[in-house]
């Protein structure tokens, strides 16, 4: 017997909107509400609203909260100012990435807010429990907290239209800023972050308030072009933005050094960091493979798992994610390829379901905001 899928506080809304649902990391999530292309374009040109309450939220509190986090996260967090967030990763002792996540120092300076991927939330939680066990710090999971991602060039306009006064502290945030406010009567903890490559906000609120906030955002956002968006658009948007997905571009032998995130790994004076020595070895050795962007010739593009070769036929890598880009109209992909084949402009060949298709290494992101 399979375990019942978990549902977010917005599950009834998704059904009422006629969403196609799909299982994802143990959750039943909206895949699309209508047209996934229309949802994708709404985020690029106006705004989109995603239910991302499946992501694993928790807080770390107490005098040793920063020390506990720095045992688990590759980045320094003690140096984060209150109301600032950063993208970081959690690794095992051998340097393997367990998850990539966002950590924010709470605006009141009374702890940290962690948002992990749904699929890895339990793994991250176990490490945070372990890291806090012998310290004066508490790991407090927040399973009753919902999370809405409001993304797109008009995301700020949507917030302003909802509640100009309440939105003001959020509109004042720089990227990776975090603040608390009240939006139309709903208390939210928000960050100016996202997974689409566009401007946007991630809004956490009590599960009991999530439906009201969702309804109001759709109502005031509709005239501005906002659409509810599902996981299909979320994946095509993050791919165009060149953002890695754990399990595709991260995990196994792919980590921060292979994906261009060496800057988030801070190893000086990090004796307590799990994986420190392994990460230092990986850093010093340099990556043998790099995750690059590929654009394919023609209309048929490589999908995940496609083998990448040199024009002479030598196997040099594998596609980790691939899809036709809704914005560019060409097949795009991320691929892990030999470091000496990772230079922008390099021409390679991908095995697209039995047919060799020329691909070219390009700069990331594929699509820049605005």
């Amino acid at each position, binding site marked *: 017997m399979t375990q019942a899928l978990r549902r977010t506080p917005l599950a009834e809304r998704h059904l009422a909107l006629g969403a196609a649902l799909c299982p994802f990391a143990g959750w039943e999530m909206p895949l699309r509400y209508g*047209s996934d*292309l229309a949802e994708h374009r709404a985020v690029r040109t106006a705004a989109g609203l995603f239910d991302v309450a499946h992501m694993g939220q928790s807080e770390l509190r107490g005098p040793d909260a920063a020390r506990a986090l720095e045992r688990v996260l590759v980045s320094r967090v003690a140096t984060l100012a209150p109301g600032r967030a950063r993208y970081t990763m959690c690794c095992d002792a051998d340097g393997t990435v367990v998850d990539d996540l966002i950590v924010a120092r709470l605006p009141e300076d009374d702890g940290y807010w962690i948002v992990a991927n749904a699929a890895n939330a339990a793994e991250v939680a176990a490490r945070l429990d372990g890291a806090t066990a012998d310290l004066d710090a508490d790991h407090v999971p927040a399973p009753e907290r919902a999370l809405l991602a409001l993304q797109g060039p008009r995301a700020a306009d949507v917030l302003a239209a909802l509640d100009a006064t309440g939105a003001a502290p959020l509109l004042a945030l720089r990227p990776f800023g975090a603040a608390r406010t009240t939006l139309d009567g709903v208390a939210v903890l928000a960050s100016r972050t996202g997974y689409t490559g566009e401007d946007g906000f991630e809004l956490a609120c009590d599960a009991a308030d999530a439906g009201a906030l969702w309804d109001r955002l759709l109502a005031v956002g509709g005239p501005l072009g906002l659409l509810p968006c599902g996981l299909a658009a979320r*994946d095509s948007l993050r791919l165009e933005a060149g953002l890695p997905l754990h399990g595709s571009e991260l995990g196994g032998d792919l980590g921060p050094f292979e994906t261009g995130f060496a800057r988030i790994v801070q190893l000086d004076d990090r004796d307590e960091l799990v994986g420190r020595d392994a990460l230092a070895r990986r850093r010093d050795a340099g990556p043998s493979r790099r995750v690059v962007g590929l654009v394919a010739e023609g209309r048929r593009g490589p999908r995940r798992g496609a083998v990448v070769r040199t024009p002479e036929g030598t196997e040099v890598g594998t596609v980790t994610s691939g899809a036709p880009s809704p914005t560019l109209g060409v097949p795009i992909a991320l691929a892990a390829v030999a470091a000496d084949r990772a230079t922008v402009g390099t021409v390679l060949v991908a095995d697209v379901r039995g047919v060799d298709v020329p691909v070219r290494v390009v700069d990331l992101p594929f699509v820049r905001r605005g």
Partner: protein
Amino acid sequence: MDVPADRRYTAEHEWIDAGDPATVGVTAHAAQQLGDVVFVALPEVGRVLAAGEVFGEIESTKSVSDLFAPAAGEVVAVNDALTDDPGAVNADPYGAGWLVRLRVSEPGSTMDAEAYRTLVG
């Protein structure tokens, strides 16, 4: 889910009508499962297909699926309009979103609309 009674269906979600030549497409169920179709790769006119043979593929942002011939026969026409408007497969899977026309030499393994409706629940 729309399943017209005037044609037959494969377990892989293609439909074929009784015309001569017979028109082949994918079902509304398949189109909905795929999401927005962004590309359809179709065979050359003149290619002779065996029943069940892969004759093309249909791609959305989320996935790419093979197309299986619902009957044996020669491809006598392909829907070139899908090159510019692959979304017709979603908008009108039983009409403007047709894929190929086959001069059928031998029927394949297909089911009637009622059986297909049961299959896709």
